[in-house]
């Protein structure tokens, strides 16, 4: 097991390096550099540029240096000082900007994963064990609907229901009075009150997918010879189900940890807009539109790194579950 983790960690190094290169390349994509962009931005808005300040900026990002040195300055600032550069659009350090949003994105991600698991697991289990029962048909139908309804529609629907039935404005993750407040129990409760809609919206399609995967996997496993053999040894049905086929069938659950995050950031920007969520998705979109490249690069970098970490986590869990993965048997 230790060897497996070490091997996976070792493989992460080149991956992370590649990610940083790509993020840096994205920062370099727009014509000109940060300084020229800043100048044109300021001039557009009729302000004058302080040459000394401009020099400082060139110095700070090593803009006069060869590209390799620029990359090195950028990445070492991030790794050593947590300095992701400056967002000119917000006129704030990128790090400050993200420190409020990234944790919320992670909270949303984890909540969505948990929601997906808690709902998908029992339903998938039920529809496999009671194949072709009416409950199975209901689950299957609901699952198809969940996959088919576009998320923004679901978001609008849920918001409408919340507004009319519960008389609550559930857009965003906080009510107005808690938006800027420091953390407290009340603020946390407020967060929970808002969180459920994005979680349901974001988790529905994944849940429906997982139900189908679990059902299919389990149905495959339930008729494997080792299940019959276990039954022939006199084990109870529950024990057989939970100990043997289920353990094989749940591996897709662990994989969700890896793929939910990028999904949240990329695919669900629309939902975040509709629900006006203070997560990183909308931020990225705006940053890209206004060529606020240090911000965009930072978000891409962080989300990619988190995805790699998530994949690593799910792989380690998978290896813990399945000795064939652990021992490298294909």
């Amino acid at each position, binding site marked *: 097991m230790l060897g497996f983790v070490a*091997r996976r960690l070792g493989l992460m190094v080149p991956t992370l390096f590649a990610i940083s290169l790509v993020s840096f390349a994205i920062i370099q994509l727009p014509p000109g550099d940060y300084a020229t962009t800043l100048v044109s931005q300021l001039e557009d808005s009729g302000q004058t540029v302080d040459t000394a300040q401009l020099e400082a900026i060139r110095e700070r990002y090593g803009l006069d240096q060869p590209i390799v040195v620029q990359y090195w300055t950028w990445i070492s600032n991030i790794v050593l000082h947590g300095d992701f550069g400056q967002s000119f659009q917000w006129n704030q350090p990128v790090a400050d900007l993200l420190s409020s949003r990234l944790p919320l994105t992670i909270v949303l991600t984890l909540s969505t994963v948990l929601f997906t698991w808690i709902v998908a697991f029992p339903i998938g289990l039920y529809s496999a064990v009671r194949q072709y029962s009416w409950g199975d048909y209901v689950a299957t139908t609901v699952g198809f609907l969940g996959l088919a309804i576009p998320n923004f529609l679901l978001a609008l629907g849920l918001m409408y229901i919340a507004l009319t039935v519960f008389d609550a404005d559930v857009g965003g993750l906080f009510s107005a009075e808690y938006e800027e407040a420091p953390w407290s129990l009340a603020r946390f409760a407020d967060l929970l009150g808002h969180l459920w809609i994005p979680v349901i919206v974001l988790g529905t399609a994944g849940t429906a997918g997982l139900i189908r995967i679990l059902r299919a996997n389990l149905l495959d496993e339930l008729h494997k*010879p080792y299940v019959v*053999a276990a*039954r022939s*040894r*006199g084990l109870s049905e529950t024990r057989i189900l939970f100990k043997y086929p289920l353990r*094989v069938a749940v591996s897709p659950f662990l994989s969700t940890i890896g793929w939910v995050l990028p999904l949240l950031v990329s695919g669900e920007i629309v939902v975040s807009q509709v629900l006006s969520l203070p997560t990183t998705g909308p931020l990225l979109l705006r940053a890209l539109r206004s060529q606020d490249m240090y911000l965009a690069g930072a978000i891409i970098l962080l989300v990619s790194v988190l995805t790699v970490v998530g994949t690593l986590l799910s792989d380690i869990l998978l290896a813990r579950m399945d*000795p064939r993965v652990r021992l490298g048997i294909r």
Partner: protein
Amino acid sequence: MTDMEFTGSTLTAAGPAVPPLLELSGLRTEFATRDGLVRAVDGVDLRIPPGSTVCLVGESGCGKSVTARSILGLVDPPGHVSGGHIWWQPPGGGERVDLAAYGRTDPRFRRIRGQQISMIFQEPLAALSPMYTVGDQLGEMLRLHRGLTKAEARDEAIALLKRVHIPRPEQRVDEYSFQLSGGMCQRVMIAMALSCSPDLLIADEPTTALDVTIQARILDLIAELQADTGMSVLFITHDLGVVAEIADEVAVMYLGRVVEHGSTEQIFTDPRHPYTHRLLRSVPRLGSGRQRVLPTVRGQVPHGARRPSGCAFHPRCDHAIAGVCDTVDPAALDGGDGHEVACVLYDDALRPDGRTLPLTVVEPEPVAEPVAAAVTGDRPPLLEVRDLRMHFPIRHGLFGRTTGQVHAVDGVSLAVRPGETLGLVGESGCGKTTLGRCIVRAETPTSGQIQYRAGDGDPVDVTRLTGGALRRYQRDVRTVFQDPFSSLNPRMTLRQIIGDPLVTHGIARGSELTDRVAEMLRKVGLSPDYLDRYPHAFSGGQRQRVNIARALILGPRLVVADEAVSALDVSVRAQILNLLRELQDEFQLTYVFISHDLSVVEALCDRVAVMYLGKIVELADTATLFTAPKHPYTEALLSAVPVPEPGRRTRRTRLSDDLPDPVNPPAGCWFHTRCPHAVAGLCDQPGRPPVLDTVAAGHDVACLRHAELDLTGVRTEM
């Protein structure tokens, strides 16, 4: 006869009748399928006396497995036990219980399963969960049924593994099924089955997936444990050699019924049912020499949903009486000696005048065939393999470093003569398939040469061929694969499957292609009407015919058949072997026939090469190799084959199933770790590995002691 109950007398009972341990009466198990209701078990009557071994035999699809599973309520939906009784006599006396009345998930079943009746299965690897260690799965049973603590269960698991002769049980107990060989897995299954000292062991083809050498050891083990514990065994197999080896009684099944039941002696020396006759005749017997035509059972088992009227066997029966057999459903009648048979010929009330008993089956004696002139070696070889090596790197670790080499083929030299059938035998993993794949250039060998003589020209080395020259070679040399089920693309019609090589080699298309495919279908004994059918509509034997047609459509000169009949039933196997023989004569084909089944090799091949760990250890013409082997490994292989004659249960050479690691083969003679004739200080000396020596004309052996050893083969007279 459906609900007729047999009471009392059992076959082996000489004195007072012993009540049977298990008695099936009128058992029916049905499957509701799209093709209709399949009566897989259709009124089975069977008794298993205490302490004896009853073998259930019959062709594939006759309902043997379903019968076995019905006993323990293991038939999965859409199947269910729909009638009859399964009377089980619990140990220590008491009322007997009817297991047929229990539901599939009845908790009462759980006390019987694993404790009173255990079962082992055909695919030992698949029958163990890959997620838990062997010790975990064994211990689970012990804790559940015997109430042991976790620590006690572990100790007991080790003891059980030792009892089934697993080497190093303390380590094996913590390993996973996929780290063990097939033979080891089956031992683990047996250990599990025995852990609660059951009264009945049901073994459903437990050795079919294993090598002969391993099979012999597993059969020994079951016999040994049976002698220790006095349990009964219901043993399901289609291998009549195994039956002769282990059975006390034999029940022959056809289409969901037991059609004949008697002692092993009675079944083998005095078979009564015409089906039993045919089954016995269709087994190639070791020691009967090369045969011109193998007898077969005509036709094939009908689909389960289309049971013929009257006697279900009548469409295939040589003795069928028109007007009787197709209307009367014969009941099983006891001939007074405990030998039961269900056939109107044995029913005095139904047998027409003029038919006398006992039934004699007129069958041409199998003719041993003289070795063909083409084979004696006066013509230059078609193919010459020289010092061929195929090494596969084993990659490991972070960057896929090569940490070792599997020597799959390790210095093989051999010549294939035009028109001959060269057999290639050896245990699984010895490199037979890899050698075959190198010959057809599906694999590019690491080193060595394969000289091929196209037409009358000079030989070319095919290991170096590329592009068009390689494609031309691959037209001449084709393969027939092992598994008739997975080797055909389910989404292609026969026209596409068989015609595909014609298209890829740009030889024919359109109506010409159709004509050639139709012609080929006829040649392999299939109707051209099947052109547009998909493979799933065909039986295993028919699919293998399709495979053969695909191999022959390009008019090859050499065909490499890799375990081409191994997945087939005895009778179908004989049909396919006959077909291969006919086609060989018709198209002047040369075969390289790879098989682990020695009796099949003997029946078909002119010469045989025996492989061990990537090397050829003996090469000789078939008769010499089988009657006077010179290598201890050949001797061991031969003696492991069960012979379908109950009188010949003899003690024989047994090989351990601990094959050496092919990555680190032992020093000296690679066989010395298992060789019964090995001499310390000679065979294990690193400096002197034995090389292939010619000991007589056309007889090569790689053994240091071949001159002094007097080895036994199989006798030739029947």
